[in-house]
């Protein structure tokens, strides 16, 4: 459970995926994963094919594997759930080696692993090729309400600043002989969290005042809006189209 290491996935590069406008990629990603999720669970071969497509997308980013592979760890709790699923689900039983497991549970577990991994790979392909700033521009372009876009833009701007502050507090604790080993460390860590809140809030106040003094009126000016050609849209939506056709085919042909 939880958010992994606090570092952005984005890696500079010049692959076709890097060059696609962010809003096209965002819509293409959501549509692709939604179509993959819509594929009926028993169609394992189709799901495996779509997984290969997602692997192809990650390879097309030309980003080294060491950036990508650790990300798959976020799936671990649900992989454990998938492994347990055949043993707890109800339905007709099948023999699998020495044990007897639920047929429907087994089908669902394999589909779950395939779909979940495809989703993570597609999201990684998006994340490594999209600058955080471009994600915010894409949200703005897609008419997400202003307050959410603003919160997101401050988040990507200050996440490293606050993470650094957190790191300095950790170094300060360690240099005074503190090490978090047991539950007895919780009061210190929680007080640190409280101090982090006060510091973040006060930083927000300072940023707000600095912006007001520079003429802030409540809306970010839109500089260099995103544009996309038909070709961009065709490229960005191609994986989603493949997945949608696959899902529709499986549903039509039982």
């Amino acid at each position, binding site marked *: 459970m939880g958010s992994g290491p606090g570092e952005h996935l984005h890696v500079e590069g010049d692959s076709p995926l890097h060059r696609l406008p962010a809003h096209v990629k965002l819509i293409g990603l959501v549509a692709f994963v939604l179509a993959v999720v819509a594929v009926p669970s028993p169609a394992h071969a189709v799901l495996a094919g779509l997984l290969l497509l997602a692997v192809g997308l990650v390879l097309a980013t030309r980003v080294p594997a060491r950036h990508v592979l650790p990300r798959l760890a976020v799936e671990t709790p649900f992989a454990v759930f998938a492994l347990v699923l055949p043993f707890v689900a109800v339905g007709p039983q099948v023999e699998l080696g020495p044990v007897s497991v639920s047929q429907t549970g087994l089908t669902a577990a394999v589909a779950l692993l395939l779909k979940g991994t495809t989703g993570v790979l597609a999201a990684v392909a998006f994340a490594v090729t999209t600058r955080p700033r471009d994600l915010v521009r894409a949200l703005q372009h897609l008419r997400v*309400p202003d*307050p959410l876009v603003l919160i997101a833009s401050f988040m990507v701007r200050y996440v490293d600043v606050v993470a650094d502050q957190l790191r300095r507090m950790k170094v300060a604790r360690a240099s005074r002989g503190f090490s978090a080993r047991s539950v007895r460390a919780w009061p210190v860590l929680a007080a640190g969290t409280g101090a982090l809140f*006060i510091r973040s809030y006060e930083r927000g106040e300072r940023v707000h005042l600095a912006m007001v003094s520079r003429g802030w009126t409540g809306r970010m000016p839109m500089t260099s809006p995103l544009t996309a050609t038909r070709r961009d849209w065709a490229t960005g939506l191609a994986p989603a189209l493949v997945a949608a056709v696959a899902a529709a085919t499986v549903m039509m042909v039982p």
Partner: protein
Amino acid sequence: MHVPDGFLDAPTSVATGVVAAGVVGASLVRASRRELDERTAPLAGLVAVFVFAAQMVNFPVGAGTSGHLLGAALAAVLVGPATATLCLTVVLAVQAFLFADGGVTALGTNVLLMGVVGVWVGYGVARAVLSVLPRRLPSIPVAGAVGAAVSVPVAALAFTGLYAVGGAAPIPLGSLATAMVGWHLLIGLGEAAITFLAVSSIVAARPDLVHVARGRMPALELRTPEVVA
């Protein structure tokens, strides 16, 4: 804790997305009227960063394992429920799109479970507890802790409900609910302890920043030395 893609079927994912978008829209209205105006967006942004960073602090549990804060009830108590919903929505979206953490199609589900159920149950319970405790500042961390302790298993129960509607495999619902709620009662206790300690430290230093402390601050009195005639 983040639901990945494929865990719930496509119709359920879309439906939770629509419901989550509706609640986030209502929170936008409420936040702009009662908690912050558009000009104070930097404050909300930094609170979102704080929630994200607070989730990176590892609290050792023992035997080499550690857990981390979920922060829904904490954020609701500190900045008010509508702002907290907006902040958690953005945190979850950034985690899904920039960190590949939590499914892209499950974003609506995750927002609904943590940003809506976690925040509003935590806030409602904290308010209810505050109404029976004495009107003093030390009551606030207690109320926040109870809110956190309740909100985590309720969110787990909400997930069980969603799974019953659009789950991947038929599991006896009774045993799923028992396992989910039982496990999350423990997580909720940890969450409650951290929330209590963190809110205590903030109430001690800057009670004026805590949303639920509004109206509970001791009235300041102006003292001047007696004028010597």
